[in-house]
């Protein structure tokens, strides 16, 4: 279970509170407009933003004080998910060994992941030599190899255009359910939330609503969601 226990974030005059939990294996969307604070919440989960107060618990353990790499989470950013000066093998290798001393076992695991993502034979290339979609899948390969229990997505693939984004999100959903990974995705697009998430947390006015089942939520939108959807 991922539990946000009376969490408050503060950045300047901005303030956000969250006090809710989701079950392991859930695919959750944090939905809200720009500036609502959904990305800040994700950065706090990832360990880039310290909490003002409260705790974040995973499986009953307080993880709020851990460094990003020590948390049971992996993250895909909006962009800058791959180091442009390293090859795909090196980029993915960082997930297995940050010193890049890769064993034969590591290398074959990387090859296997590249194969699974349709990137066979592209290991020696650098990101700039790949298409946008291939770069997105390679970034996904990195988090697959990190094989953490929670995957955080910060509006990923948004720069790739709607069709590619939808494809890649479907791939994430498929891989996540195969491994039982809990996913928290930030999005401003209700369509993403409906396609991808089991549950939705609305972020607005410095508040986060408790998680609600996606289908039920959109069937009967509460006031805040109606205001956001503009219907």
């Amino acid at each position, binding site marked *: 279970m991922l539990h946000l226990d009376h969490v408050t974030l503060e950045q300047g005059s901005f303030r956000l509170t969250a006090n809710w939990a989701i079950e392991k294996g859930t695919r959750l969307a944090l939905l809200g407009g720009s500036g609502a604070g959904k990305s800040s919440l994700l950065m706090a989960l990832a360990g*880039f933003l310290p909490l003002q107060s409260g705790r974040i618990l995973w499986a009953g353990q307080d993880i709020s004080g851990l*460094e*990003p*790499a*020590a948390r049971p989470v992996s993250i895909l950013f909006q962009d*800058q998910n791959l180091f442009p000066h390293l090859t795909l093998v090196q980029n993915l290798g960082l997930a297995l060994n940050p*010193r890049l001393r890769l064993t034969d076992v590591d290398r074959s695991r990387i090859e296997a992941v590249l194969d699974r993502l349709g990137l066979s034979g592209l290991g020696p290339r*650098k990101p700039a030599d790949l298409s946008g979609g291939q770069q997105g899948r390679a970034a996904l390969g990195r988090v697959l190899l990190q094989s953490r229990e929670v995957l955080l997505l910060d509006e990923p693939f948004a720069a790739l255009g709607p069709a590619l984004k939808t494809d890649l999100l479907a791939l994430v959903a498929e891989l996540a359910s195969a491994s039982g990974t809990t996913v928290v995705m930030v999005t401003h697009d209700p369509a993403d939330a409906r396609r991808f998430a089991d549950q939705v947390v609305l972020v607005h006015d410095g508040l986060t609503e408790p998680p609600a089942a996606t289908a039920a939520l959109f069937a009967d939108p509460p006031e805040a969601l109606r205001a956001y959807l503009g219907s």
Partner: protein
Amino acid sequence: MADRPVQVSALALSGLIMTLVLGTALALFAQAKGLSLRPADWSAIRFTVLQALLSTGFSCLLAIPVARALIRRRFPGRAALIVLMGAPFLLPVIVAVLGLLSLYGRNGVLNLALQAVGLPAVSVYGLKGVVLAHVFFNLPLATRMLLNGWQAIPAERFRLAQTLGLPSPFRHVEWPMLRAVLPGAALAIFLVCLTSFVVALTLGGGPRATTLELAIYQALRFDFDPGRAALLAAVQFALCILAVALAARVTLPMGLGAGQDRALAVPAPRGWRRLADALVIGLAALFLMLPLAFILIDGLPGLARLGPTVWQAALRSVWMAAISASLAVSAALMLTLAAATGARRLIEVAAMLPMATSGLVLGTGLFLLLRGFARPEALALPVTIGVNALMALPFLFRLLLPEVRILQADYDRLAQAVGLKGWARLRWLTLPRLARPLGLGAGLAAALAMGDLGVIALFAGDGQATLPLMVQRLAGAYRMEEASAAALLLVGLSFALFALCDLGGRRAAP
């Protein structure tokens, strides 16, 4: 965030730099206690300030028409001329002085020409020569700073001025930029001229043209009077601190990188002003290029006949420059990595502090502090290496800091997310991403160290001369063919070191 070990070592290094700079100053003040300034010292102070003011004034005023002409005209060779404007920064001072002497010296081309038409000869020694040499070095520097200023003016402002039918964009568009950029440029140049040693050593001298730096050198090297040297160095330090304190109030422009060819934003008037611009550019180019040409012409014939002591000095200079540059680059990298996140103010102050002193001041202070423990000859090479690294640090710090900030902004989170830290982060992220500025910085530091003639002149014993010192000694002994050849070798090696590091950085960059 930078790793904790980086933060800790950067703070320790900052402490060391502050101790060195302020500790040597304290040693000077302690040694100078009870001594008072003699008339000769006062005249050195007056001359130091006067020549620095004149040099700064001429450099800045002349840079305005040159930069304005360069920014609004397009002609073949323009880009090359702008690149050439960067050359004096890397040119060893002693070499440039020899070039200027071939042109304006007693037996120089100018005086030969005057003689031929029956006019009296002009002397390049004294105030005139010192200012001339300083303008040769700093006019290009000022021009490049102003070019940057002009390029930063949005094209829309010129268009607005044209739309409004203003007779010239000068008053409302260009003058505000000059008012913003000139004070910083002037202070940067004033600081350089205040601590200039080699120019005064070669073109100045005597009771009427001695700078403080030269007086320090003479007190220590010829009069064996450490107390007087300390007093003069303390005065010099106080002058520099004053100038740096003034400089802290205005932003100093960097003066590196200029001259991208983009669409012409500045209106280019026709008629006589076209001719005037051509004349200005032509004169500036001649002023810069003629001495450089003479270095080549004078130096080439003797190059093959250089003796083994010159080659040994060259080798010594190269390895000393290599060590100096490595030290300076490592220190600058460590300080910028820490300053991009942690205790910013303190580290920035420490990194810029060497600007408030000079090689000779540091050297004199170190000499006073260490003379009980070691002979000056034993200190000559290590102190020169250290002082040169220290003097390059402010440049490298300002060169690297923006690059490090970009690196942190782009990749810090990803590095943290995959747990990349310590040496692995340095090897796989920091060094490859910063290869280009690191190479450029190493090149600058190496060229500056290679050409430096300061501390070494204070301490060097037999068989310890660096190449610049060798050039100066040969010229002082009127062995001009050898001096010119050694000067050519020196400038060649300086530029080669710079190019090697810069190219290496570009090659290594992803």
